[in-house]
């Protein structure tokens, strides 16, 4: 046991590590599926017209 380090802190380390790994994994996953969100509706509308695509407008 390391001197001066509380046992409860040591016990928490694996949890912290697991959390960090999980977070990194989640970040990597979401970067696998990036969406090219437009934020200017007027230009998105022109784009939709030109490409003959429907618009998906999310309010959030």
């Amino acid at each position, binding site marked *: 046991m390391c001197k001066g380090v509380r046992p409860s802190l040591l016990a928490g380390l694996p949890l912290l590590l697991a959390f960090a790994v999980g977070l990194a994994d989640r970040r990597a996953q979401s970067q696998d*599926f*990036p969406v090219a969100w*437009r*934020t200017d509706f007027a230009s998105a509308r022109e784009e939709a*017209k030109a490409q*003959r695509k429907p618009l998906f*407008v999310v*309010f*959030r």
Partner: protein
Amino acid sequence: MRPQDAELTKLLNESFVPVRLVNMKDVDLNFFQFDYDLTFAVLMMNANGYVYSRFGSMDGTHTTDRMSVEGLKHAMRAVRSTHPTRVKAVPPLRLPPTTLNDLPAFAQSKQAGEACYHCHFVGAFRFKQLRVENKFTKAMVHQFPLPENIGITLDVDKNNLVKAVTPESPADQAGVRTGDVLVNAIAPGQVGALNLYTAADLQFALNEVADPGFVLLHVLRAKERITVSLKLPSGWRKHDVSWRSSQATFAPTVGVWGMALSAEEKRARGIAADRMAVKVTFFFNGPEWVASRGALQLNDVIVGINGETLPSMTIRQFHSHFRLNFNVGDTVTLNVLRGDRKLDLPVPCTKAGDGEV
């Protein structure tokens, strides 16, 4: 917003032009018509503003049980198939542009000076404006009635597929059956039929229907198109609107926050599991709230109103029930448990919090 679903991302990037709007400033409310109380709302439309479908639905349980990624993809696929035949369609009714700042009640509010206008401002300030004009009625808070209000439960993953029909409901009486697929709705006074791809589409269509009223639905049953006419009785629009910001802006409100007791806590205090028991945990700040809570104390448990025990409810539902059933100037008796004692505490219905957004 980063969806963690490869198919959803592919649909968004390849089949649609994805747009994310987070600020309602300068947004034309007649062009983008949806349920503004929602925290997640989608409109799928062509470049002319012809709306194919809406997505996003909530209820008083504060869960996301009414939406799923599968359901969203299902609706997107349906829109993708329809779009080539409707690419030049125009909205059946084109209203002049209007923004939040066109509402005097909003333009004169402190929120008008903020950089970001939230979606929920729209519903709240529309009600505020109606109140200024003496046109507001409490019945108006029952916006966008749920499919269950007419007796239909929709499949959360397949959107417009009828999963269940409530016996003796308007839908049942009109002949809607489990397994039917909703196609469109026609409400009196509405221009054209509204496509029904999702629960949100049905709610949008129902929002136009009076109380009492009627609505025509077209459904597909074994590839056959059937028309059903639903007669909707008085009070059909009523549902739990406690989650809606728009209904939380008018008095009376008891100036407390609280927490519903758990089943175990209820048992320990001799309260039936299905009855209301809300423990007061917090007093609203400010002198204006003091009178509104009468002699209520922290940790009091509200178990009834005017001698009536009510079904289990959350603190939001309690506030919603209070403001929809009582008026400023009334005196209401809250039936309370304080320790082992049963108390009847008169509470004056004050104007505290009235008009706050």
